[in-house]
């Protein structure tokens, strides 16, 4: 069946360092991938997305990389700030429902 999973459940980084959060997906039919940030007590918040016809997309301080060969997705956060502390989920879709990964906790140490 389809599934999206994460390699690391918790990531601790020093403020100012770069963070990399990884995700593996198994449904090769998925054509759209999204990273969400979830702060405590809130709903998932869109960070960045990428379509399957791309391998890299950049936003403000964030970059998403897609490797379709190994079905791997990563989120890079540059100059990580305390406000980046949250749970990060990758999600994939073939057009309708989102299938979420298990989540990675990002802790930023000041």
């Amino acid at each position, binding site marked *: 069946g389809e599934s999206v999973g994460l390699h690391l459940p918790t990531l601790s980084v020093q403020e100012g360092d770069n963070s990399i959060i990884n995700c593996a997906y198994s449904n090769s039919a998925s054509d759209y991938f999204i990273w969400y940030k979830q702060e405590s007590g809130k709903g*998932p918040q869109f960070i960045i997305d990428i379509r399957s016809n791309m391998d890299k997309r950049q936003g403000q301080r964030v970059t998403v990389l897609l490797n379709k060969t190994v079905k791997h997705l990563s989120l890079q956060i540059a100059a990580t700030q305390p406000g980046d502390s949250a749970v990060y*989920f990758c999600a994939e879709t073939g057009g309708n429902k*989102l299938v979420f990964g298990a989540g990675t906790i990002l802790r930023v140490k000041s």
Partner: protein
Amino acid sequence: EPEVTQTPSHQVTQMGQEVILRCVPISNHLYFYWYRQILGQKVEFLVSFYNNEISEKSEIFDDQFSVERPDGSNFTLKIRSTKLEDSAMYFCASRLVNEQFFGPGTRLTVL
């Protein structure tokens, strides 16, 4: 900036009771969703709704669950007879094209 809203923020109910969770999606959106998140677990898809009917549902969405869009603005999730395992955060989401926008969630506690 338009946003998805949900009420109530927290609902406590007794096992076997009916609950209705309410959502107001973003006004020009066409696709509507309910997801749930059991504490400490990942977000799981429940149901999607388009053109006034269910377009897709998961195995979780059994006969105890139903959705409605009673008017042009509200989107509701009803659980007819709640079970202990229904305790979770329930998120509503809506989209126009690609991106799904999520509401803040309703925390449902079944005692």
